[in-house]
């Protein structure tokens, strides 16, 4: 009796690890996605986004990531991800199902470069927002910019979930997670010197506010469209 339940749990956990790239939040937590076992080894994922018009390239990333995450769960033999109530839902669902690239799925409308640059852009924003929050907290706690510039990853508290989340953003961006690596870095890995820290934080702060505001707005729109709770950071 326990086996189907545990496979469902594993599938849900795998799906929960997939984020809305723009909002940097779990699709499950946002209420955008849910998975159901509807046959032996077969999973259907339904994705419902905040609007009919959510950008098709962002949606493609989510559908593709949801597909790959669930397909990687041992015991899952086939996955179909359905993007519902969306202007390009059928094209996107079918494109991902046949393993097409975004440019192939939207023939002639891309520039052939795919979605890698877009994905990286969102990873940079998510990293920037997390780092701003972390460093701002250190400054509030009494550290000076010079103190912060001297910190290494080893100085972080590994038990703190915010720190773990931050390290995960670094890893995803391909930045060093070596304990000896400097803490405050640009997305290209260059350390931020003490005298550049405050101007950096001024810019990073708007990135964080932007991510948070978009989250509040998208979550509110989703709740208006489908009912259900809104998510706050």
């Amino acid at each position, binding site marked *: 009796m326990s086996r189907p339940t545990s496979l469902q749990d594993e599938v849900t956990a795998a799906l929960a690890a997939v984020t809305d790239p723009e909002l940097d939040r779990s699709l499950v937590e946002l209420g955008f996605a849910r998975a159901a076992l509807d046959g032996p080894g077969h999973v259907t994922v339904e994705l419902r986004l905040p609007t*009919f018009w959510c*950008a098709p*390239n962002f949606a493609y990333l989510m559908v593709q990531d949801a597909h790959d995450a669930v397909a990687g769960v041992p015991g899952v033999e086939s996955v179909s991800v359905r993007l519902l109530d969306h202007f390009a839902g059928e094209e996107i669902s079918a494109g991902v199902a046949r393993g097409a690239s975004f440019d192939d799925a939207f023939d002639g*409308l891309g520039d052939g*470069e795919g979605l890698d640059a877009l994905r990286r852009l969102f990873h940079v924003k998510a990293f920037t927002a997390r780092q701003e929050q972390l460093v701002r907290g250190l400054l509030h706690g009494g550290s000076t910019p010079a103190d912060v510039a001297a910190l290494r990853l080893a100085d972080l508290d590994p038990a703190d979930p915010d720190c773990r989340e931050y390290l995960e953003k670094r890893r995803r961006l391909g930045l060093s997670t070596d304990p000896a690596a400097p803490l405050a870095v640009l997305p290209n890995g260059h350390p931020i010197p003490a005298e550049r820290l405050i101007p950096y934080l001024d810019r990073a702060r*708007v990135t964080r506010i932007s991510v948070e505001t978009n989250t509040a*707005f998208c979550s509110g729109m989703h709740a208006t469209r489908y009912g259900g709770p809104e998510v706050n950071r």
Partner: protein
Amino acid sequence: MAYRHNGEDVFVVDSHVHFWDASEANWRPDARVYADGWIRCFYDYHKNLSPAEWVWPLPKYQKYTEQDMMKDLFEEGYVDRAIFLPTALKDWYVDGFNTVERDAVMAEKHPDRFILNGRWDPRDGEAGLYRLEEEHRRWGFRGVKLYTAEWKGASKGWKLTDDMSRRYLDRCAELGIVNIHVHKGPTIWPLNRDAFDVADVDDVATAYRDAGLRFIVEHCGLPRLEDFCWIGTQEPNVYGGLAVVMPFIHARPRYFAEVLSEMLWWLGEDRLLFASDYALWSPKWLVEKFMAFELPDDLRQQKGVDLTLEGKRKILGLNAAKLYDIQVPVAQAAAG
């Protein structure tokens, strides 16, 4: 009806309004799903961020009357002047959604109330340039609304930096159409790139600064607030239109405060324009809440910015009055 503060009238320019027809009779038979999807999306915006007593039934929202608009803006909404920003969408709506022609009927009937803006689309080529000139000759535009995500046949969008876009911007500068309102997303060409990228605004703002063009980025670049702030701080001819940002004042006041404090810090109170985006939202409650609003202490201290009565007056009307050469009654021009 004017908004009065301490016995003085406050001059209000609503810098972004629509007079749309999204009723079913106007849906193109081959585009019903998009025509319906468009207005339903607007309606969700409206429901999500409006106070409950301001939420309309869907049929009224699809097509409201001249009387509704005159009452909501001018009789009850404290607005002195309203600026039409057309959105054609002729691929989906038989007569278009909120066209220049439809707005013009209202503007010609109420010339002391409305300012009529034009629009163009570089994909219309030479014919579109000719039409812009013809329309300008008839209506004397001071501004245009550009919607880079508009579909046209197989195309899903365009950029301000396209060669043909520059031809149109050149022509705007020649004709004195100096206020370029830009709205991004959710699609753009190429479709795989960030649909809300505002980098092309940066390019043309620099290129056309000396020609006298001003670029009003609608919705302050949301969802790309950070890119917009960075452009705005470097380009003195870039302005932030507060449509969509304003209603956060009710539903998400903390986010409103955070976004506004960033706007004040990066752009300052001289380059922000109040807008209701009517009929997405209604100006009456937005003006009332904005006049009553104060920036929280922690944000004032962290950012070193403030929202004074003088700043509110500028944002509510005086900044837009400058851009559009609107005569402000002497008593209302006095700040404070």
